[in-house]
């Protein structure tokens, strides 16, 4: 059974003449520990799809089912708890709270859930060490590079041990090297740590880190390609794989 399932997912912004159909009857499935990339031109509805899957917004029509749970049945509180426990988010900008240190940022989903601060810190520290930031625990976001900031965001996305990580252009703001590091880390999230990852990106090179790429255009799914480790050019890109 797939971890994420959407059924005829539709999102229309606005009403009447100015209505914009951002998503039109989308059916996608994501299996546990699968790494899926979503690609498509600007304004095709990538972010919208991600927000709907993450329960940040409600669809106009259709449904989202996560881990067997239909989201339309959940009230705001229920959605919030679902996000806290089952989903991790990574965004392009404003990922981190500027006034908190790396550990505090990474521990946020736990502290918000009422986990005692000490324990939350210990778990956040473990994840920061795993993403290679064990030495920058007390740094504030403005003292970290863009790539490091995204790694803190990934640690935060994982700290509550969610089944699913959603990333909206996590490398959109980074240079090539940092982008590769972040994409590699997301790959690891799926492969090593067994979480499903859905990542929106513009960059085909970054999308190639995924197991599967979904192509959107004008709110509809136009193509889907499964990448196999055997593909020659991709192998060259991830020497670690």
């Amino acid at each position, binding site marked *: 059974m797939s971890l994420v399932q959407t059924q005829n997912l539709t999102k229309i912004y606005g009403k009447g003449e100015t209505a914009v159909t951002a998503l039109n009857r989308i059916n996608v499935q994501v299996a546990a520990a699968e790494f899926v990339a979503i690609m498509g031109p600007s304004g095709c509805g990538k972010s919208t799809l991600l927000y709907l899957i993450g329960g940040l*917004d409600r669809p106009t029509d259709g449904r989202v089912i996560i881990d067997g749970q239909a989201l339309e049945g959940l009230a705001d509180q229920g959605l919030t708890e679902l996000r806290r426990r089952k989903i991790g988010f990574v*965004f392009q900008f404003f990922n981190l709270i500027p*006034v*908190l240190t790396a550990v505090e940022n990474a521990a946020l989903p736990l502290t918000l859930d009422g986990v005692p*601060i000490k324990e939350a810190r210990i778990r956040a520290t473990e994840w920061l060490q795993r993403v290679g930031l064990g030495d920058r625990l007390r740094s504030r976001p403005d003292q970290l590079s863009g790539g490091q900031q995204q790694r803190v965001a990934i640690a*935060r996305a994982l700290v*509550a041990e969610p089944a699913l990580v959603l990333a909206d252009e996590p490398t959109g*703001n980074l240079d090539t090297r940092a982008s590769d590091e972040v994409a590699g880390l997301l790959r690891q999230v799926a492969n090593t740590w067994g979480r499903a990852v859905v990542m929106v990106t513009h960059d085909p090179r970054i999308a190639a880190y995924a197991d599967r790429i979904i192509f959107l255009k004008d709110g509809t799914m136009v193509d889907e390609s499964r990448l196999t480790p055997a593909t020659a050019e991709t192998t060259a890109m991830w020497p670690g794989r």
Partner: protein
Amino acid sequence: MIIQMAFRYLTGRKLRTVLTTLAVVFGVLIVFGMNILIPSLLQAFQANVLAASGLVDITVTSVTGEAFPAELVNQVSGIDGISAWAPSLDREINLPADFYDGNSAVADRISAIALVGIDPQAAPTVRVYHIHSGRFLEAGDTSAAVISQSMADALGVQPGQSFALPTINGVVHLQVAGILPLQPRLLPGNEEVLVTLPQAQQMTGLQGKINIIDLNMSTTDEARRRSIQQAVEGAVGPQYHVGVLPAGSDVLASVKLAQAAFTMLGFLALFMGGFIIFNTFRTIVAERRHDIGMLRAVGASRRTIVALILVEGLLQGVIGTVLGLLLGYLLGAGVLQLVGPTMTQFVHVQVGGPLVSPGLLLTTILLGVGVTVLSGLIPAVQASRVTPLEALRPPVAEIEYGWKSRAGFIAGMVLIALALLAIISQQLSLVLLGGLCLLVGLVLVAPALVWPLSSIFSRLITLLYARDGVAQLAEGNLTRQPTRSAITASATMIGLALIVAGGAMIASLLGTVTDITRKSLGSDYVFVPPSIGLWASDIGSAPEFADHLRAVEGVADVSTLRFASTQVKGQPISLLGIDPVTFPRVSGLQFQQGDEFAYRALAQERALIVNGAFLAATGSKMGDTVALATPDGARTYRIAAVGADILNVKVTTAYVSQANLKADFGKQEDVFIQLNLRPGADSPAAEQKIRALTAGYPQFKLIAGRTYIQDLLQQTTAAFVGLFIMLIFLALPSLIAMLNTLAIGVIERTREIGMLRAVGATRRQISRLVVAEALLLAALGTAFGLLAGLYLGYVMVSGLGTIFPMAYSFPVAGMLAAIAVGLIFGVLAAIIPARQAARLEVVQALRYE
């Protein structure tokens, strides 16, 4: 193009525009509203002080002492500088023996009455009448009277009942409309019956006549007062006597002080209003650094940028100022309308209508538009210096770690030091200026204190919101913008400092008044002659009466005052003989110079304790020897101390020992007696004996001191409580400042809030975050406010001490009130922004730029 862009900016971000314009509106509203209120309140205060002292600025009487046409009022009321006037017709009515009690065996408690005809509308503008039951006179009243409590007691009447008075037309019955409580100026035996002017004219056959015009001046400036006096003298002509409150009198001084204090309040309002506008606008422009960088990148010159901001600021400034002026006027008028009746009822202060001066209008407009443009311009100029590239970094919400300007901190410290020097100088005007220095200084130093203070308070809030991790965030949000937090907290600080300082002032005043009253009148029993203070006209008792009293079982001490009139350097002096041993035990003086040892000097040599009025009248000082005129020629006395009791503050008075009074003046008649019982004495039995003895001396009215004091203190307390409530109102603007900062904080962090919600913060948690932030901010402001307020209070009390010496009382009530107000304001200010933050839709917040 620029105007178009400015317009788009304003309309594009509606909420933000509304908030900043609102800041301008509130800033202007506060300045304008407050300053409209102040003159009316000051006038009311002046009337109150003068009333309490029984004095007015100017009294016009006929040289002959006879009544004169009422039209004379019109000649003086229009004189520039005269703020209030009241005509009256006073007439002494001696009552036939046994007029009220009809019993010749019992001594008459009322033997004479001062009938006072007043204009019910004009009279309260000059002095205040503290009606304590019933109502005050109204125009058109016929056969109605306001009498004192002691007279009502003596006659056994209540409001609504009537009593008789002999007049030229035979006996007239007057209905009691209201009752005045016991007051120093209305002491028993000296009964005043207030009636309307026409009523008095009819009762005395003096239709259309008056014999006194009381006038109050609007200024305390000496030169100006003299010229007003001359104008009055010129208007009435030589057949009238124009009596003026002497320069340097303590009453004048306290009015002067009140004026200074109210002016300071006006300045503070200005300060606070400017602050609110500045803080809000600064934030908004600082937030636009990114946009500005972008504009610069695409080729906008610095001047274009500055012009853009200027146009925006001007637009908002003008709109905000116009609205603020309108609302401010409504506020001022509304508060006067609202507060008027309550003030009249509880504080016995009559407030007039709102007063708008052209100067105030101009200042307010300049402030509204000026501060807005300026507070936009400064950050805009700063931002326009930023290289385009720097401003184009990904828009991370601005953080300011540590405070930027060490210069500000140093300047602040210097100002605080100046404030300290100012108190040492003991100059009233310097002390007031120092208070202002202190506030500005604290504002400058504040940013450096934000971090340590907020980390302390966040511990407390962590306890409140345990396990949420919210307090930590709130603390971070405050410390990331120490300057903004400090400025906001400063607005709160000023408001709360007023409460604390006012509390200190009131507590000290109340404590001192209580103290003096207790000292002067605190004995168990007081034997009051017909007129207090005017001792010459009283008939006292031979020493035997006091001796009999001393012999009563249970009586501990009996202290008496004896009187002789004398002259020093041609000035008439009222000389009071005291017993240096028992007087301090039963009663006592409030010393301004010297101390209790002076009593011993009185017993051992020809020494005097004199009051302030004595020093002023004779031009002498402590330690001088002065020649007192006695029936046997001059005698030299040494001034051993300066002090007074409540009964004799106004009259030029010197105290001597009764032994000296007998030796040099031959007087040993007791005109005023105070008596204390032994602790645990059988008081009902003692009182019965004392009353029996007193029956033989009808010139004395026996009153129980404690009841009297209680009455007096109750009134004073009510007045002060009213004043205090007013101070709390003055703290209101700080609420607005806080609300604005929080709301802007929410707008500014929209994306962050979206992110927090995405990672699992509930709406409740977001709303708590804002509340926690508000509480922290309020706690900061309160902490600053307590500090500043304690200091200001101390300064005010000691500043006032040069005029009216009082002991500093720690303002516990003021501090508690300030803490309560601070916390309540914090929560109130948080309500709207917290709801706003909690309601944000996650996706919208994430997409917000």
